[in-house]
């Protein structure tokens, strides 16, 4: 048990150091960065990113990808606010939003897991489909909501902490638990390690794909609902390009495209890295043009450093194997 945890810690050690360094740097360099108000808000944005990224992590652990995450966010925000504007109860509206995510997830899972379509192609297509459905549903307009509950979901506080913080903390704990301690989580790691091996061990792979994509869809929808809550309105463009940030987060967190190793802990640190970087650069007063260049550069440096550290460790480990 201990040994496993230790090795997991080793894998993210470098990144963790980087995150701490970044945090300390920003605290001193960026005016207003180190303060409860800002950090609390950063935490909120971090957790929204993390909710979507935790679904993506599971998918990438399977060795697949979900390009539709951003569009699903937009779709969920539109469906929820649209249902509200039709006078549905908030519970139904939220359920509707989540359902929309689940349906796109199911479609992804079906195309990838059952029909065996290439996962990139399939989810690339559903990305367009979900975005299109969102646009058609809202007729290209922004849907405002006058629901205080939706607003509370996005901005409300309980005991001085945002609702999102409580919610995401519980959700992420569950996700962490499910992915590392339960049979389902083991199945994901197994299939990511080798689909054939998993199948020969009696795991029904298509079911796991279906369920994982549905979970990813629901989590993306949740992210979209929180975004809608923050703005108290639905917008078909809120998730545009978000999937790229999410995928970058997962990769920076040390879960490789091949799947089978890594996990949520790494993703969390990857998310902290990205969010602090974005917030810090913006607080430092860099213009968007410079932020573009610096964020891209930071992603590349993080990944290159990670690759080279891993390569070196791999070589070391090989040398340690008893001959």
């Amino acid at each position: 048990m201990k040994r496993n945890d230790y090795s997991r810690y080793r894998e993210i050690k470098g990144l963790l150091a980087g995150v701490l360094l970044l945090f300390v740097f920003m605290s001193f360099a960026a005016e207003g960065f180190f303060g409860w108000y800002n950090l609390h808000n950063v935490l909120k944005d971090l957790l929204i990113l993390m909710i979507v990224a935790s679904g993506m992590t599971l998918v990438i652990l399977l060795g697949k990808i979900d390009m539709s995450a951003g569009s699903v966010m937009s779709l969920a925000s539109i469906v929820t606010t649209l249902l509200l504007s039709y006078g549905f109860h908030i519970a139904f509206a939220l359920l509707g939003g989540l359902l929309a995510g689940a349906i796109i997830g199911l479609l992804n899972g079906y195309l990838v897991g059952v029909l065996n379509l290439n996962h990139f192609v399939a989810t690339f297509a559903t990305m367009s489909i979900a975005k299109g459905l969102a646009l058609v549903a809202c007729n290209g307009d922004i849907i405002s909501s006058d629901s205080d509950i939706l607003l509370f979901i996005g901005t409300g506080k309980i005991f001085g902490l945002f609702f999102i913080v409580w919610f995401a903390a519980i959700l992420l704990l569950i996700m962490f638990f499910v992915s590392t301690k339960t049979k389902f989580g083991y199945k994901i790691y197994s299939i990511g390690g080798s689909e054939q091996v998993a199948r020969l061990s009696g795991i029904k792979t298509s079911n796991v794909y279906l369920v994982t994509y549905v979970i990813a869809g629901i989590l993306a929808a949740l992210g979209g609902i929180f975004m809608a809550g923050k703005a108290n309105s639905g917008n078909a463009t809120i998730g545009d390009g978000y999937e790229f940030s999410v995928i970058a987060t997962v990769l920076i967190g040390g879960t490789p495209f091949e799947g089978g190793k890594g996990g949520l802990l790494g993703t969390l640190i990857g998310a902290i890295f990205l969010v602090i970087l974005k917030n810090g650069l913006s607080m430092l007063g860099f213009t968007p043009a410079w932020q573009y260049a610096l964020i891209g550069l930071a992603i590349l440096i993080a990944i290159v450093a990670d690759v080279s550290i891993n390569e070196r460790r791999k070589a070391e480990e090989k040398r340690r194997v008893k001959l």
Partner: protein
Amino acid sequence: MNDTILEIRNISKSFSGVPVLEDINMSIKKSEVHVIVGENGAGKSTLMKIISGVYRKDKGDLFFEGKPVQINSVQKALNVGIGIIHQEFNLLPHRSIGQNIFLGREPIKSNFLKVIDHDLICKKSKELLDYLGLDIDPRTLVYNLGIAQQQMVEVAKALCFKSKVLIMDEPTATLTRKETVKLFEIIRKLKSEGVSIIYISHRLEEIKQIADTLTVLRDGRIVGDLSIENASIDQIIRMMVGREIKDQYKRQYHMHGEEVLKTENLGAKRFSNVNINVHRGEIVGLSGLVGAGRTEIAKTIFGEDAIEKGSVNIYGKKYHRMSTQKATKLRIGLVPEDRKEEGAIMEMSIRHNIVHAVLPRLFKSSVISKKTELAVATKYMEELGIKAPSVNKLVKLLSGGNQQKVVIAKWMCADCEILIFDEPTRGIDVGAKAEIYGIMSELVERGKAILMISSDLPELIGMCDRIYTIKDGMVTAEFSRTEATQEKILAACV
């Protein structure tokens, strides 16, 4: 008392209209080791996959302990009591030993959330590993294990099912002799505990040691059941191939020519101070346990791994740095261990693979002439007797032996002077093996130099002029053809 545990009746199976198994009848008795032999493509693995629920049969019935059973999934087979160790490794490198052993049927603590009982996994895995005489922490990642240890994990995985019938598909292919002996001990132990074992192997010399009964498959049919006492190896081979193979290793030894390959104090990641040399017209063997550094030496000479110390001398010229491009330019060829991943491009045609290495030399202007290409590919396909309807067939559709011949054809086509063969006959049937030995002999007669790595000692002794033994990344001894015996080589390897 009826002591038949598994009975197979009239099983047939065909893939896309091509029959692979026809009317197989077989019965496995309680606590016996039932060996199945046959050439590659004879249908052994297919039969095993049907029994273990990977494939579905077209026709026929299975009886387990006298009762008819329907096995239509892996899970079902496991529940019935049939376990299998597949030919290819079925382990997840980034998971621990325990997680691998219990893969797909982890014990759970609570039913609702299906929480895995990690401590139980550890405890039970430890017991299994102890039973197998392995002193490793079950929390170790498989990634960190050697090949032999991985094989043992496979065995442990099959054991923990409490299977009544255990299928082993070529379990010793990657094991060294010492480990094989250990495996046999375990098999005997299992047998004494009432487990039946279906054992598939290419290594005929092993069979005598453990088999109780023997079934020979050829072209999807059973050609004979033998009891092991009155079967000779020659007889078995005859039944497998359908013809007599006399003297597999036909070498003629000539005086050899100049020295073309020499390493001077060569050192890299997993070996150091290696000094070996190869002359024209000579086959030099490298023997050693799996993981001793043999493959790494070959890959370093070929430029795939970096040279850390010393040098490689080719045709008398010293090289401190090597790359695969440089090596191919110097007419060195490597027939790697892993045919599917490193030898040939499975998704491309025979033609593309054969001309792959010679392209830049064949088409100096860099423009490919299809006519020339076809002619060259066809020539080598015929010369090596690659059995395929056309040169445009994809390599993945060929049998293992023919795939290996495509890899060799690639280097012959590139007119290599120095060839490195890494386990050239692994997983290849007897007939094709003999053909590959023939090709190698012919190559050295034409004045090429061959460095050969093999775990199959009779093969090494039969083919080589000289043999180096490697242990822990060091050369421990050198034997000439006349000195080499299995005992001496083993002693130097272990």
